[in-house]
Structure formats: structure tokens, C-alpha cells
């Protein structure tokens, strides 16, 4: 079994991720858990788990990213999600492009330069409406599981218009639409559209260049992927494990020292 040479820990707001790579950058092991309040303990336990299950090369390094990165005690270096996501995606793509990362509490668009480093980025400001939380919250209001949303939205059917992109106000709109007898799937489509409109505006802000990639938990949502691709008239590429992109990038950065 190949020894671990670099570990990336992404302590996000909703989930905590770890990726271990060998000296060539190939993924050796991954872990993903719901984020717990005690970030330091959780990340230490995740690292212990990786180390006990795999050989670790002498001098292996660890890079921490995500909101909780400062609490990852064993990290040799702390790097922002922007740089880590860019690095992770660049490894997947092998060339410059644009990444849309929609996490639990924030969303970001990163234009990746030819060297694999971020050339420009934009993040949503002080608003949950462009994030995974928006879908989670509104799905909850409709009594649905967030994992089921994408499939329902991707299916053909009518669409209601949700004018607001504020999470709280969107709930009021849902209530009004339900009271008028609107279909749940049509409301869902409208909600996804309003999220997409917001994200597409962010994509345009960074002077995006194809190919367009998506990462973060919401990248698993087929409805959002389809709507973004349609709005920008491009194919949306999603890595095999979109939630692990940041941790993967952090692990690759760990190899660099």
C-alpha cells in the first residue's frame, strides 16, 4: 500500500472532509463527516483514523482549509478554500477554467489561471440566498429531503416564479404559492432558478472562462447543474467527489511544502 505523503483537511461549516494523497498526488484515502461543534477534536480524530489505517511517509505534511482551519492543531499550514479549491480543480482539469463552489454557508466563483492559482474570485456577501442553506431551508419548508430536490427539478414540468432571492422572504413566497395551490415541483423549479440567477451573476463578475466546473455539496444537485449550464450555454463538469475538492487541493498543496 502506498504511503500517505500529504493530507488535506477541509473543516467546512456543514461537513468536515479529509483527503490523503501519495507522493504522486494520487488519492489514498478520504473521509467525510457532518461538522461537529468541536472542530479541533473532530479533525484530530479524523487524522488519527487516516494514520492508523494507512502508512504515513516520514515528513508527511498537513494543510488545513475551510472555516475551521485555524482550529486544526496538527496542520503545518493553513490556506483558504479559494486557493485549495482552485488547486483541487486544476488537478482534475489540468487547465485553466472557472469553478463554482456552492457550500453549506457560502458560495464562491473562482477563475483559475493557467498556473492553477486563482486569478480572480467572488464570494456571496452576508446573505444565505446563494448557498446550500437556501435549498436546505426551503426544502425543509416543503417537507422534502434535500437529496431528492435535484431529480425532481431536472424532470420536465411547469415552473413558478420566485421573485425573491432572500431565504427568509422566499419562504413567504412558498407559503403564498402553496396557498394558491401551486404544485410543489413547480415551486422547486422556481427556487432553483432564483439560486441559479444569483450564481450566474457571480460567474459573470469574474470574467469567466470555460470549462465550468462545480464543486461543493450543491454540485450533486442535477437541477442546479442543468440550470447553470443552460444559463451560460456551457457544459458543467462535476468531479467524482465534488465535496472533497477543497480537501484534495489542500492535500496537493501539502505535497508542495
Amino acid at each position, binding site marked *: 500500500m502506498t504511503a500517505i505523503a500529504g493530507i488535506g483537511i477541509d473543516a467546512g461549516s456543514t461537513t468536515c472532509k479529509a483527503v490523503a494523497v501519495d507522493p504522486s498526488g494520487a488519492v489514498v484515502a478520504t473521509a467525510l463527516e457532518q461538522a461537529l461543534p468541536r472542530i479541533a477534536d473532530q479533525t484530530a480524530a479524523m487524522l488519527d483514523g487516516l494514520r492508523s489505517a494507512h502508512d504515513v511517509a516520514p515528513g508527511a505534511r498537513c494543510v488545513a482549509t475551510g*472555516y475551521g482551519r485555524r482550529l486544526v492543531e496538527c496542520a503545518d499550514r493553513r*490556506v*483558504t*478554500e*479559494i*486557493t485549495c479549491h482552485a488547486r483541487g480543480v486544476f488537478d482534475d482539469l489540468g487547465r485553466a477554467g472557472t469553478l463554482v463552489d456552492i457550500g453549506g454557508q457560502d458560495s464562491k466563483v473562482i477563475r483559475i489561471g493557467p498556473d492553477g*492559482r*486563482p*486569478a*480572480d*474570485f*467572488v*464570494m456571496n*456577501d*452576508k446573505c444565505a440566498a446563494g448557498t446550500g442553506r437556501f435549498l436546505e431551508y426551503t426544502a425543509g419548508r416543503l417537507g422534502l429531503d434535500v437529496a431528492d430536490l435535484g431529480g425532481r427539478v431536472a424532470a420536465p414540468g411547469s415552473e413558478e416564479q420566485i421573485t425573491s432571492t432572500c431565504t427568509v422572504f422566499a419562504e413567504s413566497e412558498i407559503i403564498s404559492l402553496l396557498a394558491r395551490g401551486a404544485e410543489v415541483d413547480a415551486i422547486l423549479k422556481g427556487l432553483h432558478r432564483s439560486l441559479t440567477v444569483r450564481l450566474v451573476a457571480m460567474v459573470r*463578475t*469574474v*470574467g469567466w472562462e470555460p470549462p465550468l466546473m462545480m464543486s461543493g455539496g450543491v454540485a450533486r444537485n442535477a437541477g442546479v447543474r442543468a440550470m447553470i449550464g443552460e444559463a451560460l450555454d456551457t457544459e458543467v463538469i462535476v468531479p467524482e467527489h465534488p465535496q472533497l475538492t477543497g480537501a484534495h487541493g489542500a492535500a496537493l498543496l501539502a505535497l508542495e511544502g
Partner: protein
Amino acid sequence: MTMGHRLRLGAGSAALRVQRWRAERRYDRRAPDPGSPLNPPLRSTIRMREMMSRHYLAGRSVSGSRPVAWVTSGAPTEILKALGYHLVYPENHAALCGARRRAEALSSAAEDAGYSRDLCSYARTDLGSLLSGDTPVGSLPPPDLLLCCTNICQTVLYWYRVLADHFGCPLVLVDTPFLYGDAAEPHQVDFVRRQLEDMVPAAEAAAGREFSLDGFTAVVARAKQASDLWLEILERARHRPSPLTAFDSFVNLGPIVDLRGDQATVAFYESLLAELDERIARGVGAVKDERLRVLWDNLPIWYRIGPLSRWLAERGVNVVASTYTHAWGELAEMMDPAEPFEAMARVYLHPILNRSTGHKLAAMRRMVEEFSIDGVILHSDRSCKPYSLGQIDQRDRLVADVGVPALLLEADHNDPRSYAEEQATTRLEAFVEMMS
């Protein structure tokens, strides 16, 4: 002024001088701080603090002996200086409250009285201070005259109407048409010049003094000298490493705004310039390991100046220049004591905030070149809408056309409730990584 007032002022003034001497002695004897990413702050700042404290101290006993005017930061104060007015700048007072972390409580006092939280935080801080009587400077003298110039924003118009109603004193309004083109048209200069001439009788009446053209000319000459010096000081940041940071300039801005036209202000900036030249000669930068040079757009975040300056310095970043501090130097060349009314009409028409967003973009592009800038931070200031308007496009153009990384940082110049530390830090960290 009564004898008691005179004695108190004399004693206070002497105490400030002793305080400065002590601070300077401590500065000269200080041990080096190897752990700090910054070299020692500018020694001249100690003298600036004394000047500003002396000004606020004088204000506490000025009523009755000198006329008092409250003025906006872009107001044509040289006319009032020539009439011997003591000037109070509510915006500077609000910034001082912000830097001393008093703005939140004062803003709340204004909000409790019904003022919207969407109102500029300078206005809220100052109105809160007025309503509660709370101020870190002891007290502010009530105005005999209010002078409001619309060249910085329209909020001041409503703010000063509130002040006029509160104090029951005359309000002089100088209306400066917004400049969409490259420079003011002759009819616009004429329009403002006539307003400046018209304000003289009102200012004379409120002061009970007679205006002297010679006096006005002399004040304009000193204002020009100080503004020239201020621009020279800012331009010293072109050196690598820069002997000063924009945070130093923010802090030392007080005299050029509040005490422009005084001889002491000219002398102060001469000494500050000499200190910078001495630093340049020794090769001493403000940031010990200056690797990245940044341009700042918009007002500072007053309540985060120290921590932000240090945080950036720890990463080898020096914010070397800002469009905001340049605003008080770049118009010096327009000041002409030979034609004071005409010249000052031009000066007060051309502040960056009274000009198009394209003009500001051009100014930033020039500064990127002149100051060898690696990145631009555009502070999107919730409180200063005229300054923040256009920043999204300006940012995009800087990135696309100039090829310089640029960050839009959401905050507020005086209200810490509109500043999210974690969000700001994440963006700043990513921005620094991008530049590195």
C-alpha cells in the same frame, strides 16, 4: 473669554505639551520590537495628536471669544478661516469616535431617536453625540454658523438641516454641480464662485467681523502650501520599501482636513515630510518585510485600522496609497492665492466624490502604475454610497484591463455592526494568497 476659561485653556494646553514631551521621550527610548511586523510608527504622529487635542481643547472654551462654524469635510473653509472662525468638523469628530470605539453606542442613540440605520454612520455617530451629549473630546462648542457643501454627498444637506434646526443658527449651503465630464465647465465654476462670494456677508454677520481679502488670500496661500506638502508626503510611498502606510496617512489626515490654512499645519507637514525622507535615506520601510503593495479605495474602517494594518503587515503587505487620502492633496495645484474666489470655486468642484466613476477608475489606474501596486482593495462602504457607487465595475475593469487583482471588501467606515470579521478575513486571506 473669562479669566477662568483662559486659565483652564492655558493649563490644558501646557498639560498637552508635557504629554507630548513624555510620549516623545518614551518613543526615543523604546526598545525595538522584533516580534512586530511593522517598524515603529511615525514619530510625528505624536505631534499630530497634540495638535488635534489642542484644537478640541480650544473648542471647549472658544464660545464667546471667537465665532464657531460647523462644516462638512469638503467645505470652502478658507473664507471662514479668514474671518477667525473656530471650525468643527462633525465628520472628523465622528471618525475620532469610531477610532476610539465609541461610534456604536452613539449610533444607537441616534437610532433610538428614529434615525434609520441606513443613514451614514458618521451622521448617526454625530447626531447621537449631539442628542446624548456624549463625546470623547469633552464637549463641542455650539455653532454660530453651519457651512455645508454638497461636493462629497447629498446626505450632508439633510444632516445640516437637522443641525440648523437643533441649534437655530444660519446654514450656508454651497451647491456644487456634479462633474460628469473631465473638468468643470466655465458656467459651473462661475456658479460656485458666486456662491462663495455670496457666503461672505452671511459669514460676516454670524461672526460680527469684517472680511478681508488680504486675509483670505493669506489663508489660501497657507492651505495650498499644506496641501502641496500633503501630496508630497503621500507620493513618498512610491519608494520601495514605502516609508509610510495608508494607515499612517489616515491617522495623520486630521490637520489637512481640520486645520488647513494654519501656519502650524504647514510646519507639521514639513516635519512629517522630513521624517519620511530620513526614513527613505536609511532604507527603513513602514512594513519590515514589504513584499506586496496595495492600493486602498474609499474611507478607512476606522475601528479596525490598527488590527488590519498589523494583519496585512504580518503577510508582507503594505497598503501604500489610497484614493481617499489623495483627495486632500491632489487639488493643491488648483489653489491660486492670486485669484482666490475663482480658484477655490474650482478646487471645491473637483473632489473625487464630485466626479464621475470613470474619473475615479482613471485615477486608480494611474495610482496602480505610479505606486507599483500588486493589488487593489475596494472597501465597499455601506455608509458612503457616493464613494462605493461604481466599485463593482471599477473592480472588474482593474482586473480585466489592468490585470491587477482587486478585492471588494464589504464593511462600514464607522459602524462595526456592519463588519463581519470572519467573512472579511477569509476574503483578505484569499486575496493575499492570490497576489503572492
